[in-house]
């Protein structure tokens, strides 16, 4: 069904693999359209309780495919038509999303990783804010997410200087959750995804919404939203299960509902 990505669901985890390894998984129009289709499935498919986005081969993604960048290209149009819908759809997903950064993540490839909830990074992988080197600004949500993750000063530093960030440095500045060595890479990513996929999914979704709201809501509205959020969490069967398991001194079996 897909040509430029692979999309599979195994044991509650959806795997979206950027699949143009000969082009370092650079983004094209077709790829964005396929990603959008897959991300809609992640949103709606009740069997999916966690999403992993990763890249085939040696790169996560090198960003926009420069073959398509011709003279006279309307960059704003490309963003509106291709990147924005993917980012909006990604933000709609009320389930944990992991970027498994298997290799270099440059330009909008880096941006995609930033739009995920967790970043796991291969020890050899690198992150690059490549935009400045071609006289452009970091796009596809990059400068929206980056300062929220690592602070304004550090975000500016990465965006303007455009230096490569190693896995070790990324861990140091709080940009990634975990650095995993090459030998344990696949196993490390899978077990992290599996762990998330067995958690109370609804509560995770509500936590995501609440944290996002904390950036742009005054306290009174935020607390009102919190009351709604907790009301909804309180109505889930996972909440019941958690309470019962605690009282019965057993580990809970969450259904994601």
């Amino acid at each position, binding site marked *: 069904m897909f040509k430029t990505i692979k999309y599979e669901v195994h044991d509650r985890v959806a795997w979206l693999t950027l699949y143009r390894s000969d082009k370092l998984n650079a983004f094209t129009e077709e790829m964005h359209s396929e990603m959008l289709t897959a991300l809609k499935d992640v949103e709606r498919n009740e069997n999916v309780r966690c999403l992993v986005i990763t890249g085939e081969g040696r790169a996560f993604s090198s960003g926009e495919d420069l073959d398509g960048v011709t003279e006279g290209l309307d960059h704003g149009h490309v963003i509106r038509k291709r990147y924005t819908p993917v980012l909006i759809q990604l933000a709609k997903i009320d389930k944990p999303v992991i970027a498994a950064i298997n290799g270099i993540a440059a330009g909008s490839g880096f941006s995609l990783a930033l739009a995920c909830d967790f970043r796991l990074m291969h020890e050899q992988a690198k992150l690059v804010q490549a935009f400045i080197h071609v006289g452009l600004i970091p796009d596809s949500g990059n400068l929206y997410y980056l300062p929220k993750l690592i602070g304004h000063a550090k975000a500016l530093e990465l965006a303007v200087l455009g230096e490569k960030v190693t896995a070790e440095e990324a861990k140091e500045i709080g940009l990634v959750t975990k650095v995993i060595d090459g030998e344990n890479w696949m196993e490390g990513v899978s077990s992290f995804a599996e762990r998330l996929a067995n958690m109370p999914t609804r509560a995770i979704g509500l936590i995501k919404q609440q944290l996002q709201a904390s950036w742009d809501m005054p306290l009174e509205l935020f607390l009102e939203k919190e009351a*709604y*959020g907790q*009301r*909804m969490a309180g*109505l889930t069967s996972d909440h019941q299960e958690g309470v019962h398991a605690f009282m019965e001194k057993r580990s809970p079996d969450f259904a994601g509902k």
Partner: protein
Amino acid sequence: MENESRSIETRVEGQVGFITLNRPKVLNAINRQMLSSIVREMEEFDRDDNVKVIVLHGNGRAFAAGADIDEMMNDDSIDLELLNQFVEWDRLAWVKKPIIGAVQGFALGGGFELALCCDILLASEDAEFGFPEVDLGVMPGAGGTVRLTKLVGRATAMRWLLTGERFTAKEALDSGVVSKLVPSDLLLEETEKFASIIANKPSLSIRFIKESVHKAEDTSIYEAMQFERKNFSLLFSSEDQKEGMNAFKEKRKPHFKGQ
């Protein structure tokens, strides 16, 4: 008759009368028969002493995603003139009890016009509104251009009506189309809470306030003021006015009887 009864459902809970649009498979697209049923049930609730407030909402993914196009596409102007279908919509404006609309999902075209017939709207955070009529070569016919313009002003109304573009719940809130946004899962629950707050107020006050607000929207300040004054005076014939003011003086909670 069977179809008719299924296209909407009604129930009374507490002192709140619920009218549920119930054609979820077609996103509650409104046909003529359905509209007749809505009007009839509204009038029924309006006469029912057990009902203080009316809630209108849709079952499924939409409040109402428009009108039934099949029903009208082959009509000509004379058919429509003779049918005079919108006269039924006018009767919604004569309902004296407050109508609360709860919009989840889509309120488009005729569905949006129906929402605009409510006195106050709550909406789910993911609701979408719009008048797509322009893209069908027509325009709203059940008050859309009128009520929206009164509500949001010319500039915003023009943008939405001329482009036919959908707008979000957040924009609807910011422009004053809806009063409150609620997460989708809690919309009905919150609407019930809101409705029961109003249902417990002295119902003659509620009745005359609603009437006065509508008058204010539709006439000169001078006339609306006169109207308000008459209604204000009228309430002094009610038992609830005596009870309310006595309770205030005696620093106790009032017990309103709706009389």
